[in-house]
């Protein structure tokens, strides 16, 4: 439904350009939900926004522990923003552990809103404090709002008839209500959501709404400490159009469906649950009406194999996982590569190696995507820049897979998968179709007949009369498609498979700069979800007269044909990555450029300020 934005009531409110809020609490406190609801309201208010959900691997870690703290950061503004923000202006801490973990990120003078009811001696000790931080001066340099949120929540819902446990669980909605008051957010979208979510439990719905309203009323009536007032963040000036809030997972799912439609194929997803990729399985299984079949396989290997089996019969086979799962799929991806069947492999990257940091973001599977198979088996690799960009990247992955009859690696990451941003909904009809034509002509057929231009083999699917043939992992004869152990033939086939993938470089857009000029002192080259932070850092430096450019690479393999030439126009090249240096080495190997690596492997996105420092230390304005 399209909702018209009601102009906020500006009366008595102080206008702010942008705000960064971080909600933090126990993993059972509902912080992700609070953040998501606040995000929806903020999107509907017409602000630009970016979010960063940051949660532990444990579903319900022991209450009150620092490792069980779950956080959700949102940056919203009256101007165009690209990252969830560096440091929070406001920290909402629902317990001592949340304060312990996140206070260090709040700049001095920042606002800290605390639920004092959670500050029992036991919880304080559990969080690792030796003294009560409310009393020992820890919070002296902050604007402190200490509220008995449990008590106020319980009072607000007392007449509804829910248990005291259920009442206390509404405290996140109380906090949400307070923040809605503070930043003039509309509560109605949340009311609607709660009624839908708890439709069968009307008392729970009523309690949550009552708690939210109580939090809001508290803001309106109670005198806040000096430094706190009611604010308004005017709507951002954005291009006219229809918008929605979107996560990378949703955008990727829609893009895959759109790609399949453009190819004229039904979509088959074979997947096995893994964090943070599972959400794509959940999203796609709810898109069944759009020609989607999903299959939760017994393991990662069966997941990719089932997708290859589906592709073999003429569907668009897709498999989705994260690094460790992709590792398990590797042998089967090689099979799809040698049998030259289309397949999209989605990797929502996470911190690694091995189990690593399953809920944290990282972009350390670039080597795995580009190089990570036995033998000579190059694959096209594409990576998304923003949550919304996952849509277009997914369509591009499908286009390459079906046009070139090859598996394609589609890289997103934990940040993109979970983060939300406002997205101008594109016109799906504006994207050109790329319909697949299955082979039906029997005359002159063999399974490895190639298109002269793309070098893709023809696709004949089981069920087609007269085109029975055998595929398999054994090398095939160039001229007949039969098994061949001939050494010269293997050389030739290896070369033709590589040439096919290399040729894709001529079928993708030329590399452009995302900011700055196409020559100069310094190029900051990035890929994947670092786009926003790099773009913003480069943009700020350019404003100050620094000669710096931003090059963002979507096609990791093959790279755009002009990339080497473009890089050679810069005196210095730096490559910030959330890994220990991967793209940087691919660039160095391919173009012999003295690119320098900037690494951050903390499981957290880059801060704009960090990148700005790196730029300014190399080029003076």
């Amino acid at each position, binding site marked *: 439904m399209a909702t018209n934005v009601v102009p906020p009531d500006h009366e008595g409110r102080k206008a702010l350009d942008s705000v960064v809020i971080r909600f933090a609490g126990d993993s059972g406190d509902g912080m992700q939900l609070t953040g998501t609801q606040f995000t929806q309201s903020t999107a509907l208010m017409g602000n630009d926004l970016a979010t960063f959900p940051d949660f532990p691997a444990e579903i319900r870690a022991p209450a009150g522990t620092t490792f069980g703290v779950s956080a959700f950061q949102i940056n919203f503004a009256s101007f165009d923003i690209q990252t969830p923000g560096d440091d929070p202006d406001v920290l909402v801490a629902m317990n001592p552990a949340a304060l312990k973990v996140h206070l260090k990120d709040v700049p001095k003078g920042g606002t800290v809103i605390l639920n004092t009811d959670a500050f029992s001696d036991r919880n304080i000790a559990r969080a690792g404090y030796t003294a009560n931080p409310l009393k020992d001066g820890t919070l002296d340099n902050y604007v402190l709002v200490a509220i008995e949120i449990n008590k106020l929540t319980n009072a607000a819902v007392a007449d509804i008839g829910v248990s005291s446990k259920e009442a206390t669980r509404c405290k996140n909605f109380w906090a949400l209500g307070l923040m809605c008051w503070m930043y003039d957010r509309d509560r109605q979208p949340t009311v609607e959501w709660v009624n839908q979510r708890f439709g069968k439990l009307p008392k729970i719905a009523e309690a949550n709404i009552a708690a939210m309203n109580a939090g809001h009323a508290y803001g309106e009536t109670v005198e806040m400490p000096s430094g706190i007032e009611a604010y308004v963040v005017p709507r951002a000036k954005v291009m006219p159009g229809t*918008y929605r809030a979107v996560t990378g997972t949703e955008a990727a799912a829609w893009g895959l469906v759109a790609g399949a439609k453009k190819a004229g194929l039904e979509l088959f997803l074979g997947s096995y649950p893994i964090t943070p990729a599972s959400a794509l399985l959940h999203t796609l299984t709810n898109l069944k009406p*759009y020609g989607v079949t999903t299959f939760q396989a017994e393991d990662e290997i069966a997941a990719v194999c*089932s997708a290859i089996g*589906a592709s073999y019969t003429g569907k668009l086979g897709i498999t989705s996982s994260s690094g460790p799962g992709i590792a398990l799929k590797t042998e089967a991806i090689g099979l799809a590569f040698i049998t030259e069947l289309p397949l999209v492999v989605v990797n929502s990257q996470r911190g690694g190696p091995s189990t690593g940091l399953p809920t944290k973001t990282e972009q350390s599977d670039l080597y795995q995507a580009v190089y990570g198979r036995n033998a000579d088996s190059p694959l096209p690799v594409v990576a998304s820049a923003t949550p919304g960009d996952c849509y277009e990247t997914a369509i591009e992955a499908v286009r390459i897979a079906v046009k070139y009859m090859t598996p394609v690696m589609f890289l997103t990451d934990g940040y993109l998968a979970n983060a939300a941003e406002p997205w101008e909904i594109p016109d799906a009809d504006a994207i050109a179709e790329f319909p697949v034509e299955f082979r039906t002509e029997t005359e002159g057929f063999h399974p490895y007949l190639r298109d002269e231009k793309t070098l893709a083999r023809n696709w004949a699917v*089981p069920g087609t009369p007269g085109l029975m043939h*055998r595929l398999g*992992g054994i090398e095939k004869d160039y001229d007949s498609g039969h098994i061949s152990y001939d050494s010269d033939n293997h050389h030739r086939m290896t070369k033709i498979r590589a040439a096919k993938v290399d040729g894709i470089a001529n079928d993708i857009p030329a590399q452009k700069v995302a900011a700055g000029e196409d020559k100069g002192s310094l190029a900051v080259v990035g890929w994947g979800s670092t786009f926003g932070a790099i773009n913003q850092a480069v943009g700020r430096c350019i404003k100050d007269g620094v000669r710096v450019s931003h090059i963002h690479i979507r096609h990791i393999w093959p790279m755009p044909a002009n990339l080497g030439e473009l890089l050679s126009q810069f005196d210095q090249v730096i490559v910030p990555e959330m890994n220990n240096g991967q793209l940087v080495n691919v660039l160095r190997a391919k173009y012999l450029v003295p690119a320098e690596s900037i690494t951050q492997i903390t499981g957290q996105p880059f801060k704009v300020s960090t990148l700005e420092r790196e730029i300014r230390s190399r080029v003076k304005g």
Partner: protein
Amino acid sequence: MNVETPVELLKPADYASDQEVRWCPGCGDYAIIKGVHNTLADLQIPLEKLVFFSGIGCAARFPYYMASYGFHTIHGRAPALATGAKLANPDLDIWVVMGDGDALSIGGNHTMHAIRRNVDLNLLLFNNEIYGLTKGQYSPTSQLGTRSPSTPQGSVDSPLNALSLALGAGARFVARTFDTNLKHMPIVLKAAHAHKGASLVEIIQNCIVYNDGVFDGWTGKSVVADNSITVENGQPLIFGKERNKGLAKSDDGFGIQVVTIGENGVTEADILVHDETNKILAMMLADMNQPDFPVALGVLYNNPGKPYDEAVHEQLAEVRAANPPGTLNEMLRKGRTWTIAEGE
């Protein structure tokens, strides 16, 4: 060229590809492929509807020698590929050829899940109790004490019984035959094909190079009648050259025993009648082994349930009927959106 022209009535030879067969001379696989060709010709399955999937191993070369569609995949994973193919196109007639290492060792997980899901696949397990293609290592079905390049002093781990495992995983069709049992094989294969859902057929196969004669004790011409029993639904479980031996309830009533009709007061009325829907009986038959029992051949269990692929497509049809698909633009605009007008 890799093209076959369909003919009016398909003969067994029409199911063979033009590729030279490269199994060792005397390999049991030759007999099996002949049995498969005969079966397919009897069933007149159109070549274009027929797909053979295989994994890795000697048996896995099977699709290359078939004139149908075929996919020689990777070790152990054929059931997973076949599952995807069957879900994607339920009209296909899909057969999966696996070896014992392929199906029960590296691919044990996929075999188990294809069976428990009851995907409509014909799973043929060529069991020669050895790794042939890698030159003779012992396999998960090798008898205790098997000497091989990797177990020079003899294997010390217990072998797996494929049919018991399948029944444990919830199989709804299990059968057994052996390579040179040419008359019997098409009967079993046809029953497997007729069964909608996962059908597991264990085909005992002699590896002439690395495990020659390991089944001779019960498949040999002179002993097969006494040391195996071919079960048939509704028929008494009688075997032996003289047709005077049979399977009866054990004295404690919880198992089965071999009895001789005419000895110790045993009459034909004491002999159990095979009921292919009786899972307990099937499990006892599957477990029987030499020297105490005859090896059971034939359809041990056949009790159809809804195939997975059918259930998946029913659910898809229901969801699609209740939620007619819109355009892509409608999909992208479903849920909460907002519009910024010109000049705002």
